């Protein structure tokens, strides 16, 4: 019985990685280039922006919120960063400007959610419109080209490793550490699991919400720099729908929309599943329309899996409670 329980627990905990592994095996059978170094590097470069956004979404979802503005804020922070670089020639200043604007927008989101009790869905939807509007107004709807050395962030390498992948790896470690090894990380789970219980246990919920939005802002700013430098242009209408890519990766990776559940490595695996899926469909020439259907089905399956596993957990809790009450 115990052995069976342990087996179930392991399956539950590592199922996303098993799915990823099976997927990699199937993909490598479908196309001989799939496991080539060049292609793995491609997948990771393509994933960097979406994964960084996914970490922000994951932190917010774990604490019972979400961000629908990340794509638009990314574009706004990115075009400001590009413009500052073109004026000053300083990569550091340009990088900091992107982070600054990402954080400012997210602090406004936090203010709306925490102080004005606006549902995160509405607050961040409003921010999405405002940020996109500002990006378009600032650039008059035109792309900014001739970025010069700015492209180093998204296209440069340190040794054989692309800088964007290094960014992704470092951020993964930081987010993993925050969630696993800090009081703040544990607080997020508590807030998302049951906000009232978290308040009763002395957690400063409002402060934590501000901090988690600020972290999301930093991530969005970094993603903005990587995105614009990757395409070698300041695109005010770029990254449309990227918030959905981030949300999808987080949810496929096991982050529960109900809050209180989610892991860094799960989200990373979720991002890889989506990335591998996109990549293999392009490699074998699957039609654009079919690609959309497949991605939709994957998201639906992930949510069904999430609800199914949650129901199983709830059933177990009820069973344990009934046993302890001697029923």
């Amino acid at each position, binding site marked *: 019985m115990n052995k069976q329980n342990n087996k179930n627990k392991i399956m539950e905990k590592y199922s996303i990685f098993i799915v990823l592994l099976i997927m990699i095996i199937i993909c490598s059978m479908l*196309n001989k*280039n799939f496991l*080539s170094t*060049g*292609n793995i590097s*491609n997948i990771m*470069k*393509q994933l960097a922006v979406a994964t960084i956004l996914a970490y922000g979404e994951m932190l917010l979802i774990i604490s019972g919120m979400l961000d629908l503005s990340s794509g638009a804020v990314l574009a706004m922070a990115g075009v400001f960063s590009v413009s500052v670089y*073109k004026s000053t020639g300083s990569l550091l200043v340009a990088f900091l400007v992107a982070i600054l604007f990402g954080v400012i927008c997210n602090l406004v989101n936090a203010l709306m959610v925490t102080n004005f009790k606006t549902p995160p869905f509405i607050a961040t939807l409003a921010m999405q419109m405002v940020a*996109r509007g500002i990006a*378009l107004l600032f650039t*008059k*709807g*035109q*792309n900014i*080209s*001739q970025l010069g050395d700015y492209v180093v962030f998204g*296209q440069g390498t340190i040794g054989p490793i692309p800088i964007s992948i290094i960014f992704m790896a470092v951020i993964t470690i930081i987010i993993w550490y925050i969630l696993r090894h800090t009081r703040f990380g544990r607080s997020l789970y508590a807030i998302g699991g049951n906000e009232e219980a978290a308040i009763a246990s002395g957690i400063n919920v409002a402060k934590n919400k501000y901090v988690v939005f600020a972290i999301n802002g930093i991530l969005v700013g970094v993603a903005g720099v990587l*995105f614009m430098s*990757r*395409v*070698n*242009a300041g*695109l*005010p*209408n*770029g*990254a449309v729908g990227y918030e959905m890519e981030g949300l999808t990766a987080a949810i496929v990776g096991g982050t529960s929309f109900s809050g209180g559940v989610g892991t860094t490595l799960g989200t990373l695996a979720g991002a890889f599943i989506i990335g591998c899926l*996109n*990549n293999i469909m*392009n*490699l074998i*020439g699957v039609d*654009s*329309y079919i690609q959309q259907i497949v991605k939709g089905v994957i998201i639906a399956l992930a949510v069904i899996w999430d609800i199914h596993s949650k129901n199983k957990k709830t059933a177990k809790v009820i069973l344990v409670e009934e046993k302890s009450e001697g029923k």
Partner: protein
Amino acid sequence: MKKRVLCGLLGTVMAASLLSMSAFAEGDSYRVAYIARAQSDSFAAWLANEMMTATEAYDDMTLDVFDGQADDEKENAAIENAITNQYDAIIVQPNNGEAQRPYVENIVSAGIIAITTNARIDGIEGASSVDADPYAQAAVNAQLALEQVPENAKVVVLNGPSGNFHADKRREAWQAEFFDKRPDVEIVGEQIANWNKDEAVQYMEDWVTSNDTIDAIISMNDNMAAGALEVVSGKEEFADILSYGVDGTAEACLLIEEGKMTATCLQSAIDLAELNMESVHKLLTGEETQIDTDIDAVLITKDNASEYVEMYKERGLLD
């Protein structure tokens, strides 16, 4: 007391409305509404800006720009509002021609001058049109590619959004003017990148992985062509890759001048805006009653790219 205040406010509003209406009626300015497809689309935004600039040449005409936000419902609502506001002329840049057709017909029924532009909606009696011919824009590129693309070449194709008139017509031109005449050419990758540079980057990265050689990038706009070129930039094995786009954007002209891109066809927002304003003025003054015209499909190659780079520099779009 409250009622009196309310009556007073209502009276003031009505008087102000009547005054403003009579001011429009008595003024000698023609009021023109331009319903743009989407201000978030870089070409549409450029065209809207150029429309405003082109209007400045006419003392007897004012222009108001409205944003269709790439949404049929919103664009149709903007057309309805412009009819209600009794503009003298309404220029519509459709988001989706067939969705806007009945609303443009309503403009005509209301006795208001109607022009459809970029892309035109064909066959509306009483409506005029000013456009760039998307078939011709792709065809001039395709005809050049017939001579340049090597035998048994492998090419990739980047398409615009499905159902978009310009996207479909440009692809149709490539099929008829190039692929049907060159059965030796193999398409090793074809995807919809929705006019977007970032989507094109991702597709090209995957195609480069799965194909040892790619001889040409055939793109339905410059943004996607530039994105694909970004991926092979600096890679020696792709140094001779050919690439074709449409629009003649500042970035594409620069790439062509530098020898990185092969050709594009200018869809000049400046020319399109000037021709629109010239046409609407002729229609408003009664000089013409029906106009259907196109701007030229100018091919830009290394031979003439510098001319257009200079043009963009003068307009502040390039350093």
